[in-house]
């Protein structure tokens, strides 16, 4: 629903120099039409800001609860000191974005990170695109590297069921990877986020980890089950982080758009009044010169 306003906003943004109208054929009518349309766009961006502010508040609350899940899963990889296997070059990259635009550079920064990765080695790296945005950008240049694409992400807050479906799909994709990473936007504050990665490893590389013995009573069965679960938890955590960064970034983007619209409205009002004054003056001159010619 919100995405539909995308082209409208850019259209206005590119028409910055209003002076163009002043020297040309700026009629009162054309200025007032433009003024009206900018006012309407401002209304839209303002209400989008309110909507995303409400969504952001919820996303941040959710994120607070999810953080321990993500950290717990991350700790295992750090404590066991797992390294990517050298004999299996295949890598998996999971891009966490969403379907919605108009939120600053959140999606592009995730995609840029992946693009540098693919630039180094585009044969052994496969991508899972979560969200239409990353798919749309990557499919043009690296379409053959995409193995899974997900959409319907970002309309509603992500649930653990979403994450487990995704993890299940990744595990069943028959792509054998040695190591992988989840690329997502880590939420830092309302105005900032950082594009970060979370590691994902295969069963073989975990089983070969040197410090695995610090964990008690592990057999292959337990490790396999835990890895499957931890993939789902990590995905859930990164989806939540991504959703929160996206909403906060959209809030800032829409705030800026509203501010720019206010600026444009001021300039247009000035131009409108000047033109009106000019029309009145011209009419007066016509009347006076007509009268003196009599």
């Amino acid at each position: 629903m919100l995405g539909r306003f995308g082209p409208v906003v850019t259209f206005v943004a590119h028409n910055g120099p209003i002076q163009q109208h002043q020297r040309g054929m700026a009629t009162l009518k054309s200025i007032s039409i433009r003024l009206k349309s900018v006012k309407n766009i401002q209304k839209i961006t303002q209400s989008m800001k309110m909507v995303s502010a409400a969504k952001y508040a919820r996303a941040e609350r959710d994120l607070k609860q999810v953080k321990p899940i993500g950290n717990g899963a991350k700790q295992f990889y750090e404590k066991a000191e797992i390294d990517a296997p050298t004999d299996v070059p295949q890598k998996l990259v999971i891009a966490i974005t969403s379907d919605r635009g108009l939120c600053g550079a959140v999606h592009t920064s995730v995609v840029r990170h992946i693009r540098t990765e693919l630039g180094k080695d585009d044969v052994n790296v496969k991508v899972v695109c979560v969200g239409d945005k990353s798919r749309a950008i990557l499919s043009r240049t690296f379409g053959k590297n995409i193995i899974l694409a997900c959409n319907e992400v970002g309309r509603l807050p992500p649930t653990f069921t979403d994450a487990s479906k995704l993890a299940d799909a990744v595990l069943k994709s028959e792509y054998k990877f040695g190591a992988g990473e989840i690329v997502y936007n880590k939420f830092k504050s309302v105005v900032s986020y950082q594009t970060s990665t979370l590691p994902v490893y295969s069963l073989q590389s975990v089983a070969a980890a040197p410090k695995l013995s610090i964990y008690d009573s592990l057999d292959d069965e337990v490790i396999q089950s835990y890895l499957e679960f931890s993939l789902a938890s990590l995905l859930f955590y990164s989806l939540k982080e991504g959703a929160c960064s996206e909403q906060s970034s959209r809030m800032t983007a829409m705030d800026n758009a509203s501010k720019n619209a206010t600026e444009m409205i001021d300039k247009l009002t000035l131009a409108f009044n000047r033109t009106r004054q000019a029309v009145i003056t011209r009419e007066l001159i016509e009347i006076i010169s007509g009268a003196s010619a009599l």
Partner: protein
Amino acid sequence: MSAWRQAGLNYINYSSIAARLLRQALKADLRTEAAKRNDSHIRITKWEAGKPIKSSEF
């Protein structure tokens, strides 16, 4: 090997079935809130050689 893995499930399937059953077993006032967490909207499509494949088993 556990029975569910022999049946072709992995831990994710197993735990999500368990979670669903637990949510259904809750008291009515808590169940509506918990049922929301059961929803999933994500749609997954397989891709091959730069093209999406129509059939989706997820």
